[in-house]
């Protein structure tokens, strides 16, 4: 089952002819993902790597290919427009990788997407992976920039704001012999399309997901909101980690969203609330998988 995407998902790449988009489109194709088309205005009619058709608009690409997901690799100044174009074309899942989008742009996009049937994941995120069943998880659906080979098909759902911390957790799980159902990077920006809580609800309803790792950081209250919901409704064991215990207040720690504002969005406060809500909080990022296995009874 997995969530959001599986091995049959048809994916478009917006910005497929840029160097970043091209590189990751190739890696996804190698991983076995159905990249059915690319979108680059003015390059419609051409082929990417002699195989993938390029379209001028998302709308034309959707009509022609039946794609239901799109991944965005366009530069920050054009990313908000790219998200809106995908939503307008009826794309169900929009994954925006772009880092550095002005927050006012995202604020307007978020307001415009209210009531839309499209789900936005990101921006400033590593994307989503549902591992395949082949060797080194080949044959899965990889949308974004995560390394495919570190995954293994299995039953742990992973949700995180940070890319490299997600890879860390996934790799720990894989090395211990536990695979993942789906890994979702929701992104490090203050305004994002899909929250920890949105993903947690989907994992809770997904029969293939048996346990969950939730990785958060300082700033905002998204992790707390997810934890409070989990305390009352989640039927599956959860391990958590919150990065930024040593971050000085008021400073942006790489991610635009990672700024300690008040007392409740410090790492210490979030860890305390997660623990109170029954989430097993990993003492260090080196033991995220181990902490999950302990509370899962494996």
């Amino acid at each position: 089952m997995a969530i959001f995407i599986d091995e049959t998902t048809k994916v478009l790449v917006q910005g497929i002819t840029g160097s970043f988009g091209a590189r990751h489109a190739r890696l996804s194709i190698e991983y076995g993902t159905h990249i059915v088309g690319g979108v680059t205005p003015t390059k419609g009619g051409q082929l990417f790597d002699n195989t993938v058709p390029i379209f001028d608009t998302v709308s034309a690409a959707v009509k022609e290919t039946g794609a239901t997901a799109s991944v965005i690799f366009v530069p920050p100044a054009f990313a908000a427009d790219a998200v809106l174009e995908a939503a307008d074309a009826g794309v169900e899942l929009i994954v925006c990788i772009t880092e550095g989008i002005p927050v006012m742009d995202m604020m307007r996009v978020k307001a415009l997407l209210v009531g839309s049937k499209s789900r936005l994941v990101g921006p400033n995120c590593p994307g989503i992976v549902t591992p395949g069943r082949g060797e080194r998880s080949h044959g899965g659906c990889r949308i974004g920039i995560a390394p495919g080979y570190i995954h293994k098909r299995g039953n742990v759902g992973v949700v995180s704001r940070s890319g490299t911390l997600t890879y860390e957790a996934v790799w720990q799980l894989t090395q211990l012999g536990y695979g993942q159902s789906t890994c979702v990077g929701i992104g490090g920006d203050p305004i994002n399309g899909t929250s920890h809580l949105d993903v947690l609800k989907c994992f809770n309803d997904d029969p293939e997901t048996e346990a969950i790792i939730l990785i958060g950081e300082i700033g905002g209250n998204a992790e707390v909101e997810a934890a409070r919901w989990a305390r009352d409704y989640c039927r599956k064991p959860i391990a958590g980690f919150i990065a930024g215990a040593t971050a000085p207040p008021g400073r942006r720690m790489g991610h635009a969203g990672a700024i300690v504002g008040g007392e409740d969005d410090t790492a210490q406060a979030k860890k305390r609330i997660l623990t109170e809500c029954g989430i097993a909080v990993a003492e260090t990022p080196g033991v995220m998988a181990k902490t999950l296995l302990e509370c899962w009874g494996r």
Partner: protein
Amino acid sequence: MNIHEYQAKELFDRFGVPSPKGKVASSPKEVYDAARWLAINNLVVKAQIHAGGRGKGVFKSGYKGGVQLVKSPEEARDAATQMLGEVLVTKQTGDAGRLVRKVMVGEAVSIRRELYLAILLDRECCQPVIIVSTEGGMDIEEVAAHSPEKILREHIHPLMGLQAYQVRKICHDLGLQVSARQFGRLLHALYKLFIDCDCSMVEINPVVVTTNDHVYALDAKFNFDDNALYRHPEISSMRDSDAEDPREVAAALHDLNYIGLDGNIACLVNGAGLAMATMDIIKHHGGDPANFLDVGGGASKEQVAAAFHIILGDPNVKGIFINIFGGIMDCNIVAEGVVAAAKETALTLPLVVRLEGNNVQAGQATLDASGLNIITAVGMDDGARKIVAAVA
């Protein structure tokens, strides 16, 4: 990014936010001339630094107060002489204080009421929120803690903007009568400035109502969204690199994300989340991180070398911990960068390297064959323990 008060005044003037007359100056002579030009008897001279609490601050020379009320151009010049080129310490600057390079000389208005006004982005509901309080001129965190009912919030729909009824409501709740129209105009102008300039926060503390019912923004603190600076060259050019950490300025030139801290273990990491987590794990094992440093997802040899130079520029650093999860990034390229940088800087400090991911065997081999005294680690905990032990 922060700006100075005199730069905020430039923005206020451009958007029609009323503020008292004033001029910036960088020498006592300029202050004197500006005061003459203003032709007012009630003047104020204010030190321009990126920190609050100036009025109660003390200069390292012993001179008290970074904000001085004066009565003549001569007095203004004398006050400026005490401030310019001196280091001002306030509760927000830390013990090091900040060097005053410029002062602002302006009209000192006679105040009847002080109000608090801020606009910022509420990330939970993804909308701008206007925050006002009748308790202006005070520490707003204190007001929030002791009398939260005195803080009012009004959310603005991003696609609709500030509505007239919202302004009426705010004025009513602040108890403004004669001055309501002027305050409303200020609020509309400030909201437009907030949106048009891609601010993440603008705070005016206080907005004053004068004895003759004029409304002025008396001080301002701005934060701009760094992601949007590309479309505001006029605001980018207000950046005062002298007021920022030189290491952070150098890092930005190489597309590195660096923030200096007080500890002695430097770290070099790929990815913001992992970089934060690396600082945490050093602390967890009893060490103290010297910095946050994210080299990004596709770090080149040149970036690794630049990162080394920035790290080693911090005299407190006693050891370095490199933590790389090279998902797509080639671990061997990182290893080559590390070896080259360590040789070039004739590194003598302990260096712990934890490499994981793509092409890790080749990376490890490069480190082993380098002849350098590099301590390798398996996993983050192992690496953190080793660097803490090495600097102990």
